[in-house]
Every structure is written in structure tokens, then in C-alpha cells.
């Protein structure tokens, strides 16, 4: 077996050199990203600086507040607790809706996968409701739920739920039948097969479902906050912040709100990805 031992040593060396390579690539790509963003900001600044230097207004950018104006507005907002409260409200809603969708969606999808009777009863209804877009639920949700907070959370839940269920179900169906046969031939019980095979077998799909779903929740929360704020309740949140800035005519704040949501969405996706990767340690390399 000495040949194999030396092979595995070579493998480790290759792996560590790959890590070094990745570090280099990372550095170059980081620099490139920084340059690309700076260039975009520069063009934006030039475009938004008014018709002066080009003789004509550039569409869209020409009507937008310049990055300098946005940065200035932002510097004021950073000290404003209302702005941070918007962050907190949206973030809380997203996490609440997302967590409940995961907590309900994963067992629901697993139940659909392993119990044919349950599937026959509930899957048609599920498929019937699934094409209804989350935002179409907003008015009904406001009517159904006692508080505005709950109705927004429900709409977010709807947005994430279907994605998670469909992924769990698809993942469970994709588990190789031979793995189950192998487990049974080694004496595994039904409970064993569920906990030690189906569950880890579905984990990669749960991970994908969660990663996609967190993105959807941000789309939904912003729209839900805009719509529900129109009904008179001051629900707050980043979506409401944008809408309110629009109504109030403070255009730089609109852009600040947009960028804030971008950052929040990116951060929560990254957090979910990091957490979900722990679900599937065997897929790390």
C-alpha cells in the first residue's frame, strides 16, 4: 500500500497548491471588482452631473441623484435611528418568514416524499396554489391576519415555502434507489433509512432551496412593505423607506434604500449559504 500512501501525499500537495492559486485568483478578482465598481460610480457621477458637459441629458442616469448626493444623504441617514429601524424591520420580517417557511416547508416536503397517502391528499392542492404569486396574496393576507406584521410575514412565508418544498421533494425523489437497497440489505430499519439516508440525501436540496428562497424573500418583503404602507398603516421597513422617500421627493434617499436592500440581501444570502454549507460537509471539496 506504500504506493497509495505516496499518492495521497501528492494529493495533499496538489490541494495546498490549489489553495494558494485560489488565493491569488481571489486577489486579482478582488482588484478587478474594485476597479469595475469605481468605473461604474465614475460614469454614474458624470452622467448624473447634469446636461452641462454633454449638451444633452442622459436617459435614466441623468434623472438620478449623483453618487456624491447619495453618499451625502447616506451620511445623514447613518445617524438617523429611523433608517436603522427600517433595516431592523425588514431584516426581522425576512428572517421570520424565511425561518417559518423552512421549518414548515422541509417537513412538509419530506412528508410528501415518503408518505404516498399524504401526497395524494395534499399535493394537488399544493400544485394549485403554487402558481399564485406571493404578491397576489397581499390583500387577502391583510384581511386574514390580525396584524400587518403577520400579514407581511405570511406573504414572505408564501414566497419561500413553495421553493423549499419543491426542492426537498425533488431531492428526495432523486435519491438513488440502490442506496436504499444497500441500506436495507445491511439490516437498516425504516427509521434508520429515514434518518440516515433520506435526510442526509435531501440535505443538498434543502441547501439549494434555502439559498434560492432567501433571495425571493427580499423581493417579496420590499414589495409587500410598499403595498401595505399604502393602506394607511405605517409598517416601516426598507421597502416603506424607499416608497416614503419617493412620496416625500427625497430622491437620494431612494437610492440609499435601494443600495441598502442590495447589501442586506447579499449579506443574508451569504449567511444562509454559509450556514447551509454546514448541512453538507461531504460536498465541500
Amino acid at each position: 500500500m506504500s504506493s497509495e500512501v505516496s499518492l495521497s501525499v501528492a494529493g495533499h500537495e496538489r490541494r495546498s497548491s490549489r489553495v494558494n492559486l485560489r488565493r491569488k485568483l481571489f486577489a486579482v478578482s478582488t482588484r478587478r471588482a474594485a476597479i469595475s465598481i469605481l468605473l461604474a460610480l465614475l460614469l454614474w457621477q458624470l452622467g448624473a452631473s447634469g446636461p452641462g458637459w454633454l449638451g444633452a441629458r442622459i436617459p435614466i442616469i441623468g434623472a438620478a441623484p449623483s453618487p456624491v448626493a447619495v453618499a451625502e444623504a447616506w451620511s445623514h441617514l447613518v445617524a438617523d435611528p429611523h433608517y436603522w429601524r427600517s433595516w431592523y424591520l425588514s431584516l426581522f420580517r425576512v428572517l421570520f418568514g424565511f425561518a417559518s417557511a423552512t421549518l414548515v416547508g422541509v417537513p412538509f416536503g419530506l412528508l410528501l416524499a415518503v408518505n404516498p397517502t399524504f401526497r395524494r391528499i395534499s399535493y394537488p392542492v399544493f400544485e394549485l396554489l403554487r402558481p399564485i404569486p406571493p404578491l397576489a396574496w397581499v390583500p387577502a393576507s391583510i384581511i386574514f391576519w390580525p396584524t400587518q406584521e403577520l400579514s407581511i410575514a405570511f406573504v414572505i412565508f408564501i414566497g419561500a415555502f413553495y421553493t423549499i418544498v419543491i426542492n426537498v421533494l425533488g431531492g428526495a425523489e432523486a435519491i438513488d434507489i440502490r442506496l436504499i437497497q444497500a441500506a436495507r440489505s445491511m439490516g437498516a430499519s425504516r427509521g434508520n433509512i429515514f434518518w440516515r439516508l433520506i435526510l442526509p440525501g435531501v440535505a443538498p436540496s434543502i441547501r439549494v432551496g434555502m439559498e434560492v428562497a432567501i433571495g425571493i424573500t427580499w423581493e417579496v418583503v420590499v414589495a409587500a412593505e410598499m403595498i401595505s404602507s399604502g393602506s394607511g398603516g405605517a409598517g416601516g421597513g426598507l421597502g416603506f423607506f424607499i416608497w416614503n422617500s419617493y412620496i416625500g421627493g427625497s430622491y437620494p434617499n431612494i437610492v440609499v434604500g435601494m443600495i441598502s436592500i442590495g447589501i442586506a440581501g447579499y449579506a443574508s444570502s451569504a449567511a444562509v449559504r454559509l450556514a447551509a454549507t454546514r448541512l453538507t460537509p461531504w460536498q465541500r471539496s
Partner: protein
Amino acid sequence: MSADQVSRGALSLDNVVKIYDPDGASVMAVDHCSLQVEAGEICMIVGPSGCGKTSLLNAIAGFHEIDGGSIRLDGQPLCGPARRQAPIGPDRVVVFQNGALFPWKSNLENIAFGPVAQGWLSRAEARERARVMMAEAGLAGYEDEYPGQVSSGLRRRVEIVRALINDPAVLLLDEPYRALDALTKSVLHEALLEIYYKTRKTIFFITHDLEEAIFLGHRVVVMTARPCRPKRIFEIDIPHPRDYSVLTSKRFREIAAEVAEAVNEEALKSFVRGEKEG
């Protein structure tokens, strides 16, 4: 090698019939197949693609029922007229074509799976036993890697050890070395024989590879094109223990020519019919 080990694992197939009935068009996969496999024998099953050899193996394993005949293990009926489907159990562990290691378990945990699932070892004991068995099989150093991180040849060896830890009466191997390159195969063949000489487990081994069949087997059973039944049974009179020098021996070549002739005829029938693999 003790006597009681070899007295386990005699498989007896009597007039086994297996019919598939997709869309009402019944297709006979196995037709009154009778075969006696002795305890401690390496019995190689060779036949053209789609001939029904895997159906036979699945029936022995208990993955599906049979439509006639009976299968017995050491005299005890597994399935027959009274019960058409054999129970699935660790006395007949299957190693599959493309491997069926659990990708989310380390190699060590894969091997420790059976005894823990059956409840006759604690997790710690099973891991310890798995560690010892891996070392004996030359797999030391790969305990904590996931199957996805090691070569396919290594995976197959892990899988054989995973089957053996259950102390089965029969190992059911369904083309375990398919799709491996010739050099890896030859290493695995010798490793398998090494394990066999230590354990003397009955091995029921399906393959397409004639060289593999003759090199490993006490007997090579050539199956007919579908429906499957033994066409000819070759006693391989090359003495065990064997190593790879056997491959170039005159006797080996003679047997290979005979077996090839028997297989070729059936393969042609199967090919003309356009049988699918698997």
C-alpha cells in the same frame, strides 16, 4: 479458515421464474433457472446484456419477488411457493454496479453502518471494528475521507469491506468493477481474492468480463440470452490461490476460448434483439 465458516452460504436455486409485466406485455426475464452454489464457492455469472442475471441477483437479495420456483440458503427457503419474496437481510449483502456508498458518510462510517443499524454493535465498537477491517484490507489512512474524495477503485474496496463487516453468508456482487480501467481491475481482483482466502465467503458474482470471471471463479456459469438460465457451466480447474501470472498461462487461454465461444453465441442473440444494458 474454520470449518463452520465454509459450511455457511450454500445457495440453491430451483426452477426460478421471473416475469416482468410492464403494460400487460409479460416479459420472461428468468426461465426455470436452476443452479446450486456451494458454500465457500466463488460462482461467476456471465451473460449478455439484459439477459436477466441482475433479476436473479435481486431475487436472491429480496429486492423483488419471483413468479415460480424457489431459492434456498443453507437449506432454509428464502422464497418459494409459500412466500414469493425473500426477506432482505444482512446474510446476503449486495455490492452494486456503480457503487452505493453513502456520500455523506466517511469511509469508516460507511463500513460501520451495518452493525449499528442491526444493533449488534455500538457506534464506537462498530467504528473500531471498521478501523481494524480497513487496515486489514489495506485501506488505512482513508478512514475519514468521504467516498467522493477517493478513487473509484478504493471506493469499491471500501464497499466490499462494508459488506463483509456484516458477516454475510453470501456476498452478492453485481458487476462491482464495471467501468473501471483494466489496471485498477487487476489490483481489485487480487485484493478480492486475498479477502476471499481469509474469509471463504460464498461469492455470487455477476460480470460481463470473461477474464474476470475465469480468473476469480471456481465455476463460470454462462447464461442464455433472455430469458436467463444456465447455458453451460465451466469448472475452472486452475488451482487457488491464484495470482496474476495465471492470466498468461496456457490453461487459462484454453478455458477463455471455450467460454468466449459459449458467450458469443448468446451475446449475438441479445445484440440482434437490441437489449439494453443493466
